[in-house]
């Protein structure tokens, strides 16, 4: 029985990958013949070879053990979208005063002008020295199939550079807007460089119009130079036709500060967030805050890696999740403390709240320490509603739904309060309320 089922899945898998492979290979071959800088051709060739060596990851790959992407690749994805996008927003950030850039189906359409901040289409800037210096340089492509595929085939995206010593007065809001008439496989690419002693807040959000299935294989590379500060928000509350595999690679130089806030709210069928921090010099500080709320049959997977390669660095990670229905979540957080990384302070915590008997969490905190003078901790918890707290709230006249909502917000509070921009915090809190209400009805 089991053997025949496996064979069946394998056959289906091959068909899917073949279809998508054909298209991706054709796209790659087409690229090859187009004129490109030699360095870029080489980078893409290496990346494509890395991808084809292993194909799309399967659950045999330890990093994908709990997340089988195969079923999500079944749609007849095209590499070109059909319709131009316009329309409403699922994430209302109208209260936010920001520089705004919109990326429509992977192509930037509006580029703001701001003092100290230069923003270009990555396609148009592909030949600039700074792109050559940083693009794809810090990602381990042989281990990261999706990121390798993106590197080989991304068509466009953004190059964002914050000038040396520039402190940007307003946050930069990047809207990833998707509206495709047919199933669309998109591969946007962002390269963000915060030069020495600069400061920027950047918010990435996703807006999806239309019903067609979307698979976004995105890569964002951030370089936080000496003494620079980057606050990075990644917020998505997309509908069920949305599938996201995102890879964020951060390289931190000496004395830099990087804060990441990753929010995955109920909706998208598949979300895999990869967040890799490479601490390339001493005295860096990093904060990773994540919140995932999932219902229905959603699968939300957060994979983080903090690589402490140098002494006197501090990293702190807090991820919290609330799961309803038959939602599944994966938290895989790895802290590496290399031999030279003495006086490291590295902390990690993952807390989960399950609202249903059918919800599943696979939490895998990992700590690998090779230095001998460090302070590190990690932990993982799993719980459900505190019945005593629920009773206390109800005994004051607060209804079941409001009481649950208050407790979820309270649970998420340690994470949400970390967002320094009030307009973003308010928006996310309102989204939590709105999205969770639909889940309580089914609890």
């Amino acid at each position, binding site marked *: 029985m089991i053997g025949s089922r496996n064979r069946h899945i394998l056959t289906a898998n091959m068909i899917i990958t073949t279809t998508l492979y054909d298209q991706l290979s054709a796209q790659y071959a087409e690229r090859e013949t187009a004129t490109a800088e030699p360095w870029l051709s080489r980078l893409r060739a290496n990346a494509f070879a890395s991808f084809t060596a292993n194909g799309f990851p399967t659950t045999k790959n330890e990093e994908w053990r709990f997340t089988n992407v195969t079923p999500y690749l079944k749609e007849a994805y095209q590499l070109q979208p059909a319709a131009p996008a316009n329309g409403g927003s699922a994430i209302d950030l109208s209260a936010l005063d920001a520089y705004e850039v919109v990326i429509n189906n992977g192509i930037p359409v509006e580029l703001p002008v701001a003092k100290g901040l230069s923003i270009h289409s990555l396609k148009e800037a592909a030949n600039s020295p700074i792109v050559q210096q940083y693009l794809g340089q810090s990602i381990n492509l042989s281990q990261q199939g999706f990121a390798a595929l993106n590197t080989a085939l991304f068509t466009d995206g953004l190059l964002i550079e914050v000038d040396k010593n520039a402190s940007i007065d307003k946050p930069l809001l990047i809207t990833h807007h998707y509206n495709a008439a047919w199933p669309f496989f998109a591969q946007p690419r962002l390269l963000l460089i915060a030069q020495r002693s600069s400061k920027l807040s950047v918010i990435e959000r996703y807006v999806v119009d239309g019903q067609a299935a979307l698979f976004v294989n995105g890569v964002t590379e951030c370089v936080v130079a000496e003494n620079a500060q980057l606050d990075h928000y990644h917020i998505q509350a997309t509908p069920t036709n949305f599938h996201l595999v995102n890879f964020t690679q951060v390289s931190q130089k000496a004395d830099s500060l990087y804060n990441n806030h990753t929010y995955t709210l109920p909706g998208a069928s598949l979300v895999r967030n990869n967040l890799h921090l490479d601490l390339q010099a001493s005295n860096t500080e990093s904060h990773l805050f994540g919140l995932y709320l999932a219902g229905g049959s959603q699968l939300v997977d957060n994979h983080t890696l903090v690589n402490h390669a140098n002494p006197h660095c501090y990293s702190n990670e807090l991820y919290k999740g609330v799961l309803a229905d038959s939602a599944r979540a994966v938290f895989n957080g790895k802290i590496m403390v290399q031999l030279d990384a003495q006086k490291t302070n590295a902390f990690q915590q993952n807390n989960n709240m399950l609202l249903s008997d059918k919800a599943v969490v696979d939490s895998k905190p990992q700590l690998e320490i090779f230095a001998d003078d460090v302070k590190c901790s990690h932990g993982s918890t799993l719980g459900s509603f*505190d*019945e*005593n*707290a629920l*009773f*206390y*709230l*109800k*005994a*004051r*006249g*607060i*209804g*079941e739904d*409001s*009481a649950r909502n*208050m*407790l979820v*917000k*309270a*649970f*998420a*509070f*340690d994470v949400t309060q970390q967002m320094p921009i009030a307009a973003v915090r308010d928006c996310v809190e309102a989204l939590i309320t709105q999205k969770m209400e639909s889940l309580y009805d089914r609890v």
Partner: protein
Amino acid sequence: MLSIKNLQAGIDGKQILKGINLEVNAGEVHAIMGPNGSGKSSLASVLAGRETYEVTGGEVIFDGKNLLDLSVEDRAREGLFLAFQYPIEIPGVSNINFLRTALNEIRAYRQEPPMDAKEFLRMTKEKQQLVEFDAKLVNRSLNEGFSGGEKKRNEIFQLAMLEPKLAILDETDSGLDIDALRIVSNGVNKLRSDKNAFVVITHYQRLLEYIVPDFVHVLYNGRIVKSGTKELALELEERGYDWIKEPAYSNS
């Protein structure tokens, strides 16, 4: 206002309340005393609707409605308030937001519009002064890191804000020093009127020097075995509970 007839309830098949009868009218303060394990706190929990208790018999009529048919939140919205013996700490829920939500849900139940922010603020300030509740605590997370006395005072502050018809104080005095006890009692005395009523559950006669009851009941082994006026509390203080236990056995 409250009419309890032959109320029986227990947990996991173990009977704790074995037929309680009690009548409480508007304007009255009733004290319920009794030794540990007699069922005092169970009575409070059953009235508030705690789900761990199973009601096996009897009825409770609150302002003409069958209390036992109502959900926990609807009992509160009808005007029943339980001051918890052990108030819960809820980090991340602000005291003020909690009170605003509670107040507005109660108002919505009574088909009243939500209270506007200005009026709410005015009321908060007034009540907080009335019951001498530290303004700093109002904006903190609900009971988080509060001392025992601060938690009990927060219960009385909530009581003042929600203006219930019937308040049940479940051992609000236990663990309080004499100053905290005086403050809590003053708060209750200021809130007493001919329109509301109090059921004060206590282990110690001391509280009743500050909150003077109209009636004192002694609960023993799941039943009210003796009722009287405030003099009964003094007698209990002097003689203990042993003399009262005997009739309970002879009656049964």
